[in-house]
C-alpha cells in the first residue's frame, strides 16, 4: 500500500452561508489517478482548489505531501504551489504572444530559472518537438492542451491537477491527451486528480469519487484489464 499523498479530515469550505464542500474525509495514495465527478456546483473545483493550495479551507485538516496546508503562510503556500503542484485547466491560459517553448520557460521562470533545453525536451515529450516556435494561436486545441501539459509537468510536480482539461477537445484529441497523461504518469509517477464531467475521461483513472452538493456520495475503483 503506497503512502498517502493527500489526507483530508473533515475538510470544509464555505463561502458565507453557502457550504461548497461539506466535511470530507479522503485519502489519496501516492501515484494514484483520482477522477472527481459531479454536476456543476457539486464542489469538484472547490476540492481541487483546496488540494492545489489555490484556496484555503474553512475547517478540517488538509495534508498534501506531508505539508499541512492550513499551517502554511501565503509565501509557504506559493512555494507549495510552485514546487509541488502542476495544473491543467479547461482554458489553456497560454500567453498568446509567446511561443510554445517560451510559455513553458515562463513556468520555469516562476519556479526557479528558465532552461530552454529542458523546455524543448518537455515539449518533445508531449509530441510537439516540431511546434516549438509556434505561438498558441497557431496550434490546434489538442496541441495547446499538450503545451499546457508540458508547462504543468516542467517543474516535476508530485501532484497534477486537471480541471476539465479535455472539456474543449474533440474525441480524438481527448484520447491523445489522456494517452499522453497516462504515459507521463508512468514515467514520472506523479499523482493525478482529474475533475471532469465526462464519464469516459473519468474512466482513465484508478478511482473515481462522486461529489454531490459538497458531499462525497459514491466511490468507484476501476478494475483495469490488460486492454485498459
Amino acid at each position, binding site marked *: 500500500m503506497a503512502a498517502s499523498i493527500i489526507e483530508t479530515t473533515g475538510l470544509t469550505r464555505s463561502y458565507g452561508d453557502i457550504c461548497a464542500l461539506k466535511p470530507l474525509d479522503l485519502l489519496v495514495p501516492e501515484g494514484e489517478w483520482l477522477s472527481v465527478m459531479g454536476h456543476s456546483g457539486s464542489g469538484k473545483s472547490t476540492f481541487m482548489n483546496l488540494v492545489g493550495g489555490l484556496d484555503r479551507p474553512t475547517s478540517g485538516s488538509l495534508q498534501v505531501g506531508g505539508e499541512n496546508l492550513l499551517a502554511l503562510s501565503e509565501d509557504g503556500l506559493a512555494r507549495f504551489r510552485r514546487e509541488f503542484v502542476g495544473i491543467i485547466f479547461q482554458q489553456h491560459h497560454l500567453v498568446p504572444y509567446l511561443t510554445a517553448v517560451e510559455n513553458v520557460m515562463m513556468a520555469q521562470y516562476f*519556479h526557479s*530559472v528558465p532552461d530552454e533545453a*529542458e523546455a524543448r525536451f518537455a515539449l518533445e515529450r508531449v509530441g510537439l518537438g516540431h511546434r516549438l516556435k509556434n505561438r498558441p494561436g497557431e496550434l490546434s486545441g489538442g496541441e495547446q492542451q499538450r503545451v499546457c501539459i508540458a508547462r504543468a509537468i516542467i517543474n516535476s510536480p508530485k501532484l497534477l491537477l486537471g480541471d476539465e482539461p479535455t472539456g474543449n477537445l474533440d474525441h480524438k484529441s481527448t484520447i491523445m491527451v489522456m494517452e499522453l497523461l497516462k504515459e507521463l504518469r508512468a514515467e514520472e509517477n506523479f499523482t493525478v486528480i482529474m475533475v471532469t464531467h465526462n464519464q469516459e475521461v473519468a474512466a482513465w483513472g484508478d478511482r473515481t469519487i462522486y461529489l454531490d452538493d459538497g458531499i462525497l456520495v459514491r466511490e468507484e475503483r476501476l478494475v483495469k484489464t490488460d486492454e485498459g
Partner: protein
Amino acid sequence: MIAIVYKLIPHLLSWFCIVLVLLRCFSVRRSVIMIAGISGFICGVADSAVLFRFFSASTSYAVIKSALGASFFLFWTIAVVAVYRSGERSTTVSSRARWFDSSFSAGVISAFIAIVSGAICACRIPVVDSGALTYAVPVLAAISLAYASLCIEKRISVSFKAAPLGAFAAVVALLLFSSSSLPRLDLFSPLSMKVMKGVHDFVHQFMESILIPDHLFVKPIVWKYIGLLFGKEVGFWGGIIIWFTPVLLIALAIGSARLPSVAHIRQGAQRRKLLAAAIREQRLQLVIPFFSIVIFAGAAYQSSFPSVEYWDPTPVAVTANQAGEIFIPKTGEINLEDGKLHKYLFKQGTREARFFILLGPDGQLTVDLDACAICKPDGYGQADGAVLCYYCKTLIPLETVGKPGGCNPVPISFIEKGDGVAIDGITLINSWVSTVQATTRVTEGGK
C-alpha cells in the same frame, strides 16, 4: 557641546553602519564583535586624544590618514585577488576561510576597524579645553549605537547575508565617508591630485616612449583631445575610477562566481531550484557592495564639495613706491599678525600679481604667491590649520606654508621692517609671470 555632537553625526552614523555590517558578516560571533568593537572604538578615541596632545596636528592627521590609506590599499588588493579567484570552483573550505571564521579574526578585524573609526571621530573634538567629559560624548554615543545595531541586526532576515568581501567594501566605504567630512583626513581630493600628476607624467612619458610627434605637427583637434589628459578633470575622473573600481571589482567577483555544478542531478526542476537558490544568494550578496558604491559616492561628494567654509578675502590692491618696493603695514585696517590669510593684488602696467601674507603657527610672517608651481593659479583659501589649493583641493598645513615645492604656495622674499613688510615689486611680478606661464602651459597640454 551641542556643536560637537552635531559635528559627530556623520562619524557616529558611519560607526552605527559599520557595527551593523560587521555583526551580519560575523553573525555567529556577535559578542566578540561587540566587545572588540566597543573596546576598539574607545581605544581609537584615546589614541587620537594622545596623538593630538603630544604631537603636532600634521603628524596626528598623517598617522590616521595613513591607516585610512592602508585600508584603501588593502581593499584594492583584496578586490583584485577576489576577481582573480572568482572563476575558480571551490570544493573545499580553504584554511583562509576557516581563519576568517574564527573568533580571533573576527575580534582583530573588528578592533582595528573600530580603532580607526574612533580615532576619526575624536579628530572632531578640539584639543584645547577638552576634558575627559568631552571625549566621553562620542564613546557613550558609540556604545549606544553599537547596541542599537545589535538589536536591528537580530531583526534582519537570516537569508540576507553579508559576504566577507561585501562587508569589507562597506566598512572601507563607511570609514572613508566618515573621514571625508574632515578635509585633513580626506583621501579623495589628494588622490585626484596625485592622479592628475600621475596621468600627466604617464602620458608625457608614453608619448615620448613611442615617439609620437610633437604638438606642432599634430592637428589641433587631435591635440585638444590629448590635452584633455592633462586637465584637472582627468584628476577628478581618474580619482573616481580609482575610488570606485575596487568595489566594482568586488561586485564583479561576487557576480561572476561560479554557480554550483548540478550536472549530476537527474531532475531538471531540482537542478533549476538549486541554481535559482545560488543566483538568489549571489544577488543578495550584491546588495552590500551596491550600498557601498553609494557610500563611496557620498564620500567623494563630501570631499569635492566640503561643507567647510574657507576664509578667502578679496585681494586688496597695493602699489609700489618709486624704488619699486611694496610696503604693507602690520597693523591698521588689516592686522597681518592675526593668523589669517591676507590677500593683495599688485599691478604694474599690464602685468599683475596676486599674493598673500600669513602669520604661521611658528610666529613668523610669510609672503607667498596666491599660486603654486603646479596648478592653474586658482589661489588658496584658509581652513582650520591649513590652506587649500582651490584647483586641486590639496590641503597645505599652515606649518609648511612658506616652504617651496609641490602644491605649496610659491614663497616670495621680503623684508620685515619693524611695523610692516617690504616686497620688491619686480621680483613679485617676475615670479608670478614665470609661475603662471609654466602652470598654464602644463594644464593646457604642452609637453
